[in-house]
């Protein structure tokens, strides 16, 4: 009995192996954890079930920087994965590696897969396209930064929980009241540079750097020491001093403090909604991020964060057809809706957005739609399309270091932002030299 079972298993395994051999395997390295990881595996399973020629094999390779490092090492060793998920700050590095990647537009064209960039949300595709509008990487998981409000805390402080502050002026007034109501931590943020420099700039339609935020060439320079930037960082420093702003760290550490009820206001990724809805024991809402109402044209639109899928070079030509097929599959409205509603990342095509709307999902989950509305608030300008700075992993860290010194009261905002620009530009020049 045991023997037959074993034999059957063996036979089944061999059958599977021989089948897998006939298929073309496509390696997909990603950095998705938790519910997002489940989503990735589900996407692969559905695609593999939909056809027989190709088999997508998702492999979790650690955090974003880790999987990128792993892919760089694999490429140097001559055996990169087919598809690599790269976070937004790595975009310029990937783009510059012309021999290491194949632009998605080319992959689709070579495979003769139907592909129309106009079907996608412009704020999403703009971020990952070259200056001529060719899509370089496939926008897979895109989020943006939104403003979370603890409605119960607002009520406790005598504020209207249904009316979240729209401008920074209103925001400060509300913060004072919350402080007076006894909150030690009034406001905190996740991803400080992404929120208060990158999205702040696009939301107010001011450049982060020259050359269309670096999209038009590596000879770009930071412009984040403009009077408006300095004023905003100084305001945050001032709020920190008054106890109206509590700094939590460079990543999403602040999210737990909002979800626990410690801090009644927070700006962070749309991706925090899952955590907040699981843990928060209070009524809360998701809103547009505040703006300075004396800035002309504000609010413009926010920009995305998250990651995109890059197709790596040096793979057998036949494999790329499978990659193209997989991307077409990912773009279908049903699949997009599945990904959007199960992870909180924004849908990347207009059709998927409409489909989700029609399904009635947004009535129960208004926060999911708000992100899309904020991203498409106005047609993106060259200041709000996105950004592309070389070695921005280091660049963003420099900006965050300088902001920290303002929040800690060690530097004034003007000096700090000037230093950030100077140090950031050094990094940009080095990148430019290395990628000539």
């Amino acid at each position, binding site marked *: 009995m045991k023997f037959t079972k074993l034999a059957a298993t063996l036979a089944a395994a061999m059958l599977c192996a021989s089948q897998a051999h006939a298929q073309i395997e496509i390696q997909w390295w990603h950095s998705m954890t938790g519910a997002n990881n489940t989503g990735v595996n589900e996407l692969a399973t559905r695609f593999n079930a939909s056809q027989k020629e190709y088999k997508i094999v998702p492999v979790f390779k650690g955090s974003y920087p880790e999987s990128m490092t792993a892919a760089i090492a694999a490429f*140097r060793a001559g055996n990169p994965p087919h598809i690599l998920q790269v976070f937004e700050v790595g975009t310029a590095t990937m783009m510059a590696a012309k021999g290491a990647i194949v632009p998605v537009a080319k992959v689709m064209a070579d495979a003769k897969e139907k592909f129309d960039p106009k079907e996608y949300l412009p704020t999403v595709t703009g971020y990952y396209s070259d200056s001529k509008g060719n899509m370089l990487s496939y926008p897979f998981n895109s989020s943006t930064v939104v403003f979370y409000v603890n409605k119960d805390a607002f009520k406790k402080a005598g504020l209207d929980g249904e009316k979240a502050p729209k401008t920074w002026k209103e925001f400060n007034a509300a913060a004072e009241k919350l402080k007076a109501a006894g909150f030690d931590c009034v406001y905190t943020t996740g991803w400080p540079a992404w929120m208060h420099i990158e999205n702040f700039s696009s939301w107010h339609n001011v450049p982060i750097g020259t050359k269309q935020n670096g999209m038009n060439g590596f000879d770009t320079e930071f412009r984040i020491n403009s009077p408006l930037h300095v004023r905003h960082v100084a305001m945050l420093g001032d709020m920190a001093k008054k106890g109206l702003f509590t700094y939590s760290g460079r990543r999403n550490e602040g999210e737990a403090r909002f979800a626990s009820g410690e801090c009644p206001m927070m700006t962070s990724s749309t991706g925090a909604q899952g955590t907040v809805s699981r843990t928060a024991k209070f009524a809360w809402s998701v809103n547009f991020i505040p703006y300075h109402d004396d800035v002309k044209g504000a609010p413009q639109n926010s920009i995305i964060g998250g990651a995109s899928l890059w197709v790596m070079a040096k793979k057998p030509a036949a494999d790329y057809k499978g990659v193209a097929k997989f991307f077409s599959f990912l773009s279908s409205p049903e699949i997009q809706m599945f990904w959007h509603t199960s992870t909180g990342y924004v849908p990347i095509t207009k059709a998927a957005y409409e489909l989700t709307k029609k399904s009635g999902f947004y009535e129960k989950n208004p926060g999911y739609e708000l992100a899309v509305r904020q991203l498409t608030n106005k047609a993106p300008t060259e200041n709000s399309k996105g950004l592309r700075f070389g070695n921005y992993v280091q660049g963003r860290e420099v900006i965050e270091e300088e902001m920290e010194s303002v929040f800690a009261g060690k530097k004034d905002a003007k000096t700090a932002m000037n230093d950030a620009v100077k140090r950031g530009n050094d990094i940009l020049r080095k990148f430019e*030299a*290395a990628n000539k």
Partner: protein
Amino acid sequence: MEKRVVFRSAWLPYALVAPQIAVTIVFFFWPAVQAGWYSFQLQDAFGERTQFVGLANFAALFNDPNYLHSFKVTALFSVLVAGSGIAISLLLAAMADRVIRGALAYRTLLIWPYAVAPAVAGVLWLFLFAPSIGIVTFALRAVGIQWDWVLQGDQAMALVVIAATWKQISYNFLFFLAGLQSIPKSLIEAAAIDGAGPGRRFWTIVFPLLSPTAFFLLVVNVVYAFFETFGVIDATTQGGPAGATQILVYKVYYDGVKAADLGGSSAQSVILMGIVIALTVVQFRYVERKVQY
């Protein structure tokens, strides 16, 4: 009488040390030479374009005030880690040496932390000292100390020093305890009969006899503080806030592994290598003279 082993064969001694030398070459010299070579180059992340840039990487480093700041941070950090690590473990070892009842239990407990990986140690302290949920934070708030290492550089430094030292105390303790136990009891008893108190006995007899151990631990602890503590830092402060805990080795790791800046990172590791070699030479030439074997 000749105690040394004499090999008659010409090749046998070489064959016997060959594996050791091979390991050293492959795992130590080769990477070191490669780092040296990369430090003169400017490379893109994927290694498609490589330029020889001479000393440009080094020049860029020494023109960067933040890199120079990171020297100061490293000096402070290693003095604190090595100093407090050795002092505390010596105290603990001296105490444990006197204990008679339950000595084994004490020793075992004191040695335990050594089995904890640096990253785990970091996370452990991170939880205890977390700005909003940490137990220690709570206690500190209760006595009126605003604990917020996410923004306060001094507190962040205190946190990483505590985590890094805690991890190393067991190791030091082990050596000190062994050193203490190898000191002949008769010497101490003789001193006691002559009327020397415990403090005097310690400083005039025990400590000089422990000096070889202390010297060895000094070298080991400095190397530990320079190189092995990056796991602790990566798990807690990641060099922040505003570079307050950015020690040299962490910057090497960050620039090389996370930011894919191979040239800059290699130049830093060459400098770091130079510093540690120089420090070790100094220790052996000057500090060792005071050691009584």
